[in-house]
């Protein structure tokens, strides 16, 4: 088996070789740069984007570092996650992603074939979404200084108007899909079955990683009615709603958040609340009440069949910043912001 060596990351011939083999040769010529700009067609320290051709008003940029242990999981791997995650961040800010930068740091001794699968998956996502990969970095860390692999992606997009998340009094909350799938898978892997491939194959849990670019026409249409949009990753939907409540000084009431049965059962087994589990292919919106129904209908037409209204934003004098959950049996309780690590419990 071939291994990653320290020299692969030292900026010499070896690095040039591995990058052209791993990355450059796989990106379409057209997507190596933004039209009339500079990208990885001429690998340099940075990439240039001509603005004169661009009529839109805002450049949206988002960057994120991804570490997942283990790097492969049902539904994807760290490569597809890194590409999708940053793309979704741009989409949720109202931008159409057009270009990306990546930075891959890998541990000495990591199997090359696995690295290749990871990078392929990343490039594949960018390709399908028509996002140009215009630059990047590649480093190798000595064994033991890094746990396998770390990928950072920066995605740039353009938007007519960025969505700044401030839900308004009276808004209706809409979720595009089931939540918590990705977080459940990661919990599953970290709770000790990671090396048992056969066990995972029979499993019904799978990450929901998917780019949310299909939502762009919807965002375009309702741009003036959308007061907040976010993909609930770390911290889950509970995290997003609490942040929104706090930032806007409103109170949020939610009920009936869609959670897949498998995810709910697994979460119940660990004694954790799926409202805190991450999604990597779901979106929450806060939209004006008048258009809410139509918004959901349109979302369903775009292929998000599970789209659903899950709550309301209300003004409160005394209780600004809280999230209240109406329970299945009609009782009420507070939905607290996520705290600490999620650990399974005995009791």
């Amino acid at each position, binding site marked *: 088996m071939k291994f990653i060596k320290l020299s692969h990351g030292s900026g010499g011939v070896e690095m040039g070789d591995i990058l052209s083999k791993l990355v450059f040769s796989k990106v379409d010529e057209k997507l190596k740069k933004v039209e009339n700009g500079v990208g990885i067609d001429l690998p340099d320290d940075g990439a240039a984007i001509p603005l004169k051709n661009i009529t839109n008003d805002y450049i949206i940029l988002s960057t994120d570092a991804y570490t997942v242990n283990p790097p492969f999981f049902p539904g994807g791997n760290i490569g597809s996650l890194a590409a999708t995650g940053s793309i979704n961040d741009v989409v949720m800010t109202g931008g159409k992603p057009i270009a990306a930068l990546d930075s891959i740091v890998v541990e000495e001794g990591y199997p090359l074939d696995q690295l290749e699968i990871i990078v392929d998956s990343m490039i594949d996502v960018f390709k399908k979404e028509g996002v140009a990969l215009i630059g990047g970095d590649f480093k190798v860390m000595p064994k033991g200084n890094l746990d396998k692999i770390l990928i950072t992606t920066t995605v740039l997009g353009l938007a007519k108007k960025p969505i700044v998340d401030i839900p308004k009094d009276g808004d209706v909350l809409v979720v595009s899909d089931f939540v918590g799938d990705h977080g459940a898978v990661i919990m599953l892997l970290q709770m000790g079955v990671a090396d048992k491939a056969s*066990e*995972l194959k029979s499993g019904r849990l799978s990450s929901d990683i998917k780019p949310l670019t299909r939502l762009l026409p919807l965002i375009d249409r309702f741009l003036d009615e959308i007061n907040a949009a976010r993909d609930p990753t770390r911290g889950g939907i509970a995290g997003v709603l609490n942040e929104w409540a706090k930032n806007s000084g409103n109170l949020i009431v939610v009920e009936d958040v869609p959670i897949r049965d*498998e995810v709910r*059962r697994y979460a119940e*087994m660990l004694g954790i609340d799926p409202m805190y589990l991450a999604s990597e292919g779901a979106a929450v919106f806060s939209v004006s009440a008048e258009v809410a129904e139509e918004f959901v209908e349109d979302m369903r037409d775009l292929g998000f069949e599970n789209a659903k209204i899950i709550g309301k934003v209300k003004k409160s004098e005394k209780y600004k910043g809280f999230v209240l959950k109406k329970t299945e049996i009609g009782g009420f309780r507070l939905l607290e912001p996520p705290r600490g690590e999620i650990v399974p419990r*005995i009791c």
Partner: protein
Amino acid sequence: MCLGVPAVVVEIDEEKGYAEVDYGDGVLRKAFVGISLDRINRGDLVIVHANVVISKISLEEAEEIMKILKEIALMSDEEQKLSKN
């Protein structure tokens, strides 16, 4: 104090007293059978607490509850109708 989770018994290792159970996510996990082995068969619905099978869910009793609860649920329908009239 003891979070118990329903699971289906998929396999039993009689000798060691292990059961392989599915909690509903399709992944088989081992659990000790802490109770009498002859109470448990493949396909049974059991309650598992921290990797230990602590009880079998009696389907007869469950159906009994269902019957009672369905009646209660029906009553609430009727109550609603009454209050609307």
